């Protein structure tokens, strides 16, 4: 039984024999294309009507595409984040998406002609009610909580969610950000390279709260039947993050690439997002969201910097953070 499984897996791992179908190469973030992410569903869904072969290539997409420049193999880039698109845009490598984005289900205004959001969420500190009975009810309460409340966050120099925290704190505290960091620092148990290490520490019970997303509890409810994990909702507001797709200007498959972009905002595509990517769909009426997503508590206020503001704030905000944490 096991041997057959391994054999099947091996077969599945070898690339399909060259078919005459055109190939659409999609550069995507690591997790998207894994079988637990939305990738396989997206691939199957698109191949069902495109008469093509969609190929996910995963890795560090932004550095790679910037390095490859116009010689890139990519037709589509999938999974860029709102806070780093400024540099991607200046490269001039991307073409307009050509979609109607007048009625997206986002909590912020979106008028970008190049980068098309396919999902979104907000940063939040997630806790386990069985371990933290009195979670802070606001950002201020978190800052003024006793220092034995321990949180894990991600490094803004290495992780996209860490960068979002920088911008979140900046948008809540503005000029008072250094004081806010000084209050938060003693509560930070550790800073990890990426979201996954942090979240692992949290689920292992090392930390009381973890920097994650408002949508994280949905996974535990839906996949594990565990209703003890919650995102602490702060009245000061939560920072918005969306994942974006864009087509590459120099693509050798312009029609296919356009077809793919056209498909992203369709209900069929959008319905795969909530329970595979554990985030909110970018264009889907709320009634069509899975119940677990509809029931999640939502912040009243969404904070967001556009990419130019984010790019301008990144270095000074990082310096403030570094200074506060190097004391």
């Amino acid at each position: 039984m096991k041997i057959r499984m391994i054999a099947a897996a091996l077969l599945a791992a070898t690339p399909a024999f060259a078919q005459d179908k055109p190939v659409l190469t999609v550069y995507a973030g690591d997790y998207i294309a894994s079988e637990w992410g939305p990738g396989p569903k997206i691939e199957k869904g698109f191949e069902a009507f495109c008469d093509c072969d969609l190929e996910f290539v995963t890795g560090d997409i932004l550095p790679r595409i910037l390095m490859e420049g116009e010689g890139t193999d990519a037709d589509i880039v999938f999974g860029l984040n709102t806070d780093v698109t400024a540099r991607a845009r200046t490269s001039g490598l991307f073409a307009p998406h050509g979609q109607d984005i007048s009625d997206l289900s986002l909590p912020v205004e979106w008028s970008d002609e190049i980068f098309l959001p396919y999902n979104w969420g907000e940063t939040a500190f997630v806790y386990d009610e069985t371990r933290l009975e009195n979670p802070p009810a606001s950002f201020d309460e978190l800052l003024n909580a006793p220092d034995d409340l321990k949180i894990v966050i991600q490094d803004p120099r290495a992780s996209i969610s860490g960068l979002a925290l920088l911008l979140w704190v900046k948008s809540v505290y503005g000029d008072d950000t250094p004081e806010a960091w000084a209050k938060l620092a003693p509560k930070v148990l550790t800073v990890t390279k990426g979201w996954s290490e942090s979240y692992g520490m949290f689920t292992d019970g090392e930390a009381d709260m973890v920097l994650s997303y408002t949508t994280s509890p949905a996974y535990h409810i839906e996949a594990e039947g565990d209703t003890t994990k919650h995102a602490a909702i702060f009245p000061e507001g939560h920072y918005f993050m969306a994942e974006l797709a864009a087509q590459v200007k120099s693509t050798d498959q312009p029609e296919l690439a356009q077809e793919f972009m056209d498909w992203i905002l369709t209900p069929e595509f959008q319905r795969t997002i909530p329970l595979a990517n554990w985030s909110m769909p970018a264009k889907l009426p709320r009634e069509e969201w899975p119940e677990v997503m509809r029931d999640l508590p939502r912040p009243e206020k969404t904070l967001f910097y556009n990419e130019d503001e984010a790019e301008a704030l990144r270095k000074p905000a990082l310096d403030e953070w570094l200074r506060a944490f190097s004391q």
Partner: protein
Amino acid sequence: MAAGILAIKRDPGGVLIATALAALILGTLAAVAWQARGLSGLGIWDWRAVRFTVWQAVLSAALSAILAIPVARALARRRFPGKAALVTLLGAPFILPVIVAIMGLISVFGRNGAINDGLRLLGLPEMSIYGWQGVILAHVFFNLPLSVRLILQGWQAIPAERFRLAESLAFTPADIARHLERPMLRSVLPGVWLAVFLVCLTSFTVALALGGGPSATTVELAIYQAFRFDFDLGRAAMLGLVQIGLSLAAMTLARWITIPAAFGAGLHETQGPRGPQGWRRGTDMLAILLASSFLLWPILSVTASGLPRIPMLPADVWAAATRSAVMAVSSALLALLLCLTLALAIARGNAHWIEMAGMLPIVASPLVLGTGLFILLRGWLSTDAMALPVTVAINAIMALPFGLRALIPAAQALRDDYGRLADSLEMRGLARLRHLTLPRLARPLGFAGGLAAALAMGDLGVITLFATDQPTLPLKLYQLMNSYRMADASACAVLLMVISFALFWLFDRGGRLA
């Protein structure tokens, strides 16, 4: 110059490989700098990172080497059932994939770990693994096994005849220490310290997970940031250069304090000396016991939590596991080939620069190496086609320094002890390789191959840069975590660990049996 040419004539392989290595490491750095159109200056945070990196590496290396001495001595002079197995097991942390090791350390030393549970029970203050102390703890955890292994080899390299002679002369333990052990340590320790120092110099994930915050930033993180976030290749190249500069300085320092011990030839005998009785027996056993629990507890703890779920892992994980294993074995074979050629050339007394070149990869940032290769090979090869071969090659190269540390002393001893005899018998080429070199070097070769395979198995660094549709097992582990499947991820971690150990064991065992 004439001597140089003669050396090349006698030994084209070693010179060739060393030149290629230096060219590759410096060339990729140059490629990155060239792509960036020059080097960028370093900021205040970069210099802080340099300072922290050097400081923690010096301390980690010193602690690992010093703590390893009593353990290695105890293992060298005591015999007990299961000793061979224990020596192999104690090597485990060094080849443990970083992410798995961190999980293990946290499960024992973390806030929620067994140690703090115990302290709370006794009403004592808790200890924290987060902060510089966590970085040092983790580095000692990783490198104590390497240090013990290298020092143990030093002990085993003292011919048994010497100990018997010492016994017949009624040497006290202090005399033995003075005449036999200290000279050996004097020759072995700088190398051990250097090896650990260099490993810790490029540490990245450990420092981030356990460092507690930005005050524990290492240069490798700064390189990662420069690549991934700032896309500042000039700064990345500059930092890569700083890292190589630091290591060259350390290597020069270690060379300068090394005085080779000369014990002369002995019969090849694996029975070590018999240790002194009395209270020293107790301290030896204590050293072994403490080291074993420190090194094995975190591993057992991780295993206990992940093992039961392994059969439930999705088919994809098994495919990635197979792919990773094949890549690891290829890396190991390539590493052995390079390693043996270099070690023999170094033993022949060829220029020190060969050894320097062989040690270089340990500090070459895999990120710089990978990116440089990417820039150089683009246009010749499609990125997808090069992802796996380049990963195999980089992993082989990254394992070289460890292999060399184990092989060079053995190759030198072989040369000193049997070289003249073999020369006088005109034993050359393949015959010499088959009848003298391979059998005599089988042990360190097996060890080196095992290390290379295991390290390649757990490596994550290079492949993510190249982006691929054929993920390796460590990448799968991260994918599982990223999809919230933490329990599956811990099972995947155990699988990764089991395969790493199995590969190491197969090579190492092969070396001992040969």
